[in-house]
């Protein structure tokens, strides 16, 4: 019951009893109640006008790095005897230091400052409103205000370092890079032998073939190494990403995409990102650090979502990616995806799938399910069928047990076979 109304009812009852009994001494008990109420009413702030500004020392931080915030509360109204300030944080942010609720008093035009430090996991967080409650000195009357904040903090994933992946798209770009381009020229790997042309360095002349043919000079040709167009696809469909409690396999996909983007961009490739889930978020292809920053920012706000029209990969906008380029998709993979991926490969794209294994993930998170459970075995068989279908169509596929680092999985799979990843030997 509201404290004001409790006292008011007691005073009224007391008066009524005094009137009924015609006993003045009974009415005396109402005196402290009424004076208390009157004192509270008199001490009530006449006009409440409060400003709150929350300033962050940085808006872009790595996961786990501390962010310092200063909250400044200014009273533009009359004196406030009790001011309760609530400084909430979004779910996903953890307070390291600083109060969640402060009790203070503010004179007119007085300012109060409170510092807090927090960290957070990947995400884009809009700072929540600051809630203030003003009260009279006895706390009888209160007035709540919600003061909106405009600050925003972005926590992108921090990319792990990956060793170079031997990708081999059908077409490369015109700039020198690390990817074999299927074209003869200057490089390190032997490519072909051709007739000598004026200007060829003598040390590239293949004397053995020249002697055998006896018709002129022959020169060794080496494979040109170029940069490539790489399209990264992040599968953010709710249906394919498992969530168990607070843990979601989607976070592993995010970490993988961040690491792959950093690795491809460091090699000078042109990288774009498509997030396919509730909607389609497209980061236009680009180069260098700026592009990496764009991709990380896009990954910071990536969330899983459900959209009936994007429930299967059928509506994947493949035309966004340059023809015959390399596509790297990170997806837990569902059975219905196979057909679209095969079609993608048939159009001339070189497709590399990195598939966080949802079965292993779920098994680790639910210890009561045994690995030899018939349901688990059936799920594994089903997955193996899809994987085999994709591999037969020429798609490179890596099944990733997310308990192991991606780098370790990639290394164990990097036995070159014609410059392609050998990903077929690992059991699914």
């Amino acid at each position, binding site marked *: 019951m509201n404290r004001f109304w409790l006292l008011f009812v007691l005073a009224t009852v007391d008066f009524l009893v005094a009137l009924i009994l015609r006993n003045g001494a009974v009415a*005396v008990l109402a005196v402290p109640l009424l004076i208390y109420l009157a004192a509270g009413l008199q001490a009530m702030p006449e006009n409440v006008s409060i400003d709150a500004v929350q300033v962050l020392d940085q808006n872009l931080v790595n996961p786990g790095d501390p962010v310092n915030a200063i909250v400044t509360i200014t009273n533009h109204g009359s004196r406030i005897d009790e001011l309760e300030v609530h400084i909430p944080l979004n779910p996903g942010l953890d307070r390291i230091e600083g109060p969640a609720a402060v009790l203070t008093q503010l004179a007119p035009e007085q300012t109060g400052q409170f510092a807090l430090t927090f960290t957070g996991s990947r995400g884009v967080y809009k700072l929540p409103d600051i809630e203030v409650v003003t009260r009279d*000195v006895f706390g009888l009357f209160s007035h709540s205000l919600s003061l909106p904040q405009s600050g925003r903090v972005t926590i992108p994933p921090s990319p792990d370092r990956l060793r170079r992946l031997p990708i081999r798209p059908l077409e490369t770009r015109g700039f020198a890079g690390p990817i074999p381009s299927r074209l003869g020229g200057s490089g390190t790997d032997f490519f072909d032998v051709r007739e000598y042309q004026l200007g060829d360095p003598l040390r590239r002349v293949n004397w053995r073939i020249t002697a055998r043919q006896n018709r002129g000079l022959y020169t060794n040709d080496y494979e040109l190494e170029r940069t490539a167009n790489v399209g990264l696809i992040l599968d953010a469909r709710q249906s394919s990403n498992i969530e168990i409690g607070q843990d979601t396999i989607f976070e592993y996909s995010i970490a993988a995409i961040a690491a792959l983007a950093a690795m491809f961009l460091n090699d000078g490739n042109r990288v774009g990102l498509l997030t396919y889930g509730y909607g389609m978020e497209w980061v236009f292809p680009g180069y260098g650090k700026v592009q990496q920053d764009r991709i990380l920012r896009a990954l910071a706000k990536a969330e899983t979502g459900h959209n009936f029209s994007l429930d299967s990969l059928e509506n994947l906008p493949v035309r966004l990616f340059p023809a015959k380029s390399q596509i790297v998709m990170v997806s837990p993979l569902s059975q219905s995806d196979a057909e679209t991926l095969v079609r993608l490969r048939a159009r001339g794209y070189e497709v590399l799938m990195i598939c966080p294994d949802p079965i292993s993930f779920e098994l680790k998170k639910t210890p009561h399910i045994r690995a030899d459970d018939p349901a688990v075995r059936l799920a594994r068989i089903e997955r193996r069928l899809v994987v085999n279908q994709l591999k037969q169509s020429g798609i490179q596929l890596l099944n990733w047990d997310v308990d192991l680092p991606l780098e370790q999985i990639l290394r164990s799979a990097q036995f070159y076979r014609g410059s392609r990843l050998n990903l077929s030997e690992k059991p699914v």
Partner: protein
Amino acid sequence: MSRLERIIWIDLILSSILSAGAYALGSQGIVAFICILAGCAWIVAFQRRWQWAGNLILIGAFLITASGVVLQFNPYLLAFSFLAALNGWDLIHFSIRVAAADRVNDLTGTQNVHLRKLLEVDIFSSLLMVLALTVQLRLPFGWILLLGMATVIVLTRLIKAIQNQNL
């Protein structure tokens, strides 16, 4: 024990002792004992931070003192007992608000402002209560009715004003 807790203890003990004294003077030993028990219960409720108990015990204190006054026990002791109970009730709520905050800016200053205001209420209430209990005026029923109606009108306006301010 903090200064605020000491004052709350004093208020609660004073309230129960004064009401128990009033009943004991009127040869109502059992009720006096109940008053002491109620005081102890309030102290336990305060120590255990039972927020729900505060309002109930204030209502109980009001009923005990009002009954004592109606039964014509010492009205001075009973009136001051109720004043002490009101003080204790207010300070317990204040201590809960202070404890709910992670940080209190200038705790001593905030406590001092609160205690000063409460002291003003106590002094003013004590004077008025003593005056009211000492000066006996015989008012005809019509006057009492008129005063009662005026009080109702003033209170109604007050409530409307408070509701308009959304407090």
